[in-house]
């Protein structure tokens, strides 16, 4: 069953250029979809349209059965959490604690529950010792972790991560990926916007945007093998797959090694 349905969506910030062009996309409940694409391809714009921060020039967006418009935007926003590309855009409070609470406050979550969630999620992202700090006193990666905690704490059915791990160290990135896997197991619908092919591999499905158009939409395994499309969108092949293609080009035949490389490229 689709939880997000986008039909013929077109958007421009100003008259002369269309940033998104006739985008059609259906995301199923409980699915994890990666959105990839070159810088400026329209990924963040699309995510802002889905939560109603921007208004489409034409086309329709339906979320959980509700058509997005002026009357439904508030109800729809309660169902979707978004971690913005720049964590500073998420911070409104004086302290880290305020910022983790902010999303929950908007949902009207009861105070006691909020306090326990702040503890739970700040611990989860390893920021519990920083609750009294001001957001501008954090390092880049610490800001990202706080932004993630605030959105996870909201407990929405749909979560969008817009390059939410771009400034995390390798271990921090792995742990966020494992939270996302947990969420998926709980039936949460996930959209991750990323430039990391390794991260995209974890998702069920990959959508590629190029100059505002959807140019690929398929299972992660299929799209990650599509060398031509990846190249034309400023993306790249995973290293083991790249090696397989080079072996084939140079007629180096070795079925055993190819098989192993296949396995290695699909290890999550």
């Amino acid at each position, binding site marked *: 069953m689709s939880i997000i349905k986008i039909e013929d969506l077109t958007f421009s*910030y100003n008259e002369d250029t269309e940033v998104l062009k006739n985008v059609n996309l259906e995301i199923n409940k409980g699915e994890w979809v990666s959105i990839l*694409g*070159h*810088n*400026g391809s329209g990924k*963040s714009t699309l995510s802002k349209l889905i939560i109603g921060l921007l208004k489409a020039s034409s086309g329709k967006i339906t979320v959980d059965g509700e058509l997005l418009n002026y009357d439904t935007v508030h109800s729809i926003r309660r169902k979707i959490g978004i971690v913005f*590309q*720049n964590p*500073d855009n998420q911070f409104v409070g004086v302290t880290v604690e305020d910022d983790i609470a902010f999303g929950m406050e908007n949902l009207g979550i009861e105070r006691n529950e909020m306090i326990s969630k702040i503890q739970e999620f700040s611990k989860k992202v390893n920021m519990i010792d920083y609750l*009294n*700090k*001001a957001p501008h*006193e*954090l*390092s*880049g*990666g*610490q800001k990202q*972790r706080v932004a993630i905690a605030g959105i996870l704490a909201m407990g929405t059915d749909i979560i969008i991560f817009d*390059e939410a791990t*771009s*400034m*995390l*160290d*390798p*271990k*921090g*990135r792995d742990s966020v990926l494992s939270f996302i896997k947990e969420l998926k197991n709980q039936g949460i619908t996930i959209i991750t916007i990323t*430039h990391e*092919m390794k991260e995209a591999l974890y998702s069920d499905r990959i959508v590629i945007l190029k100059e505002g158009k959807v140019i690929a939409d398929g299972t992660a395994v299929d799209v990650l093998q599509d060398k031509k499309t990846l190249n034309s*969108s*400023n*993306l*790249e092949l995973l*290293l*083991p797959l*790249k*090696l397989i293609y*080079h*072996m084939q080009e*140079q007629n*180096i035949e*070795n079925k*055993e*090694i190819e098989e*192993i490389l296949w396995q*290695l490229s699909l290890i999550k």
Partner: protein
Amino acid sequence: MAIKFNQVTYRYESANNDFYDAISDISLSIEDKGEFITLIGETGSGKSTLVQHMNALIHPSEGEVLIYGIKVNKNTKKDKKEKLNPLRQKVGLVFQFPEYQLFEETVERDIIFGPKNFGMSEVQAKAIAKEVIVQVGLDESYLLRSPFNLSGGEKKRVSIAGILAMNPDILVLDEPTSGLDPKGRDDLLNLFLSIHEKLNKTVIIITHDMNIVYKYAKRVLVMNNSRLVFDGEPSVLFKKKNIEEWNLDLPDMLELQYNLENELGIKFSKNPNNIEDFLTEIKGAK
């Protein structure tokens, strides 16, 4: 020697009167020619704080930094503009968040701000803006746009263009590739590499991407818990057992090498630097 840290500690005082040593007792030297350095380490370990000392943006709480012979310590007055300003041109710093660097009405004005500040004519600065915008993978039409109405990766590129326009002797880039698409990342790294090789300039890059460390760096600095815990060659670092403990991981090439060695029961003759090296080993394994 261009930059020398002597036992530098930097202490933040928080709004709630806590003190925190973000870097502690750091000593290191950086040459103004011929170095390609990556600075890595876990989130919050002090990397951004460390590099902000390199052009005297912040001053040590203890110890001193020598930058092109100018001594900077806790007694150095922040308003010593005439003394410190030339350092900003010699050591160009790109911030982790491009938003901290972009403030003008147009991209062009942002890019020419630095060069003009250091005495270049407007006409000359504009000509340079046209060159650098293309170098970072955007076209000239971006010059007239507002830097605030750009995508994340486009902002990053513009902030890098601003430093390139200043033509500093040392380029210090705080996570220049985060938010760039893979091709943009490779193109810009190759640009930094060519600046390093052709003009013999020193480049210092903060990154969480071990592939960059492996592929480009001659020297790698690792920060952990406010301290410099490693200063040496990447090949030595990746042999160490502490990688995990420092929240790092292996570059893709090494991971694939070790996996293939395990699976095939072979030993590579050397660590691979590119796909061709893998192919050579694979041909040998037949």
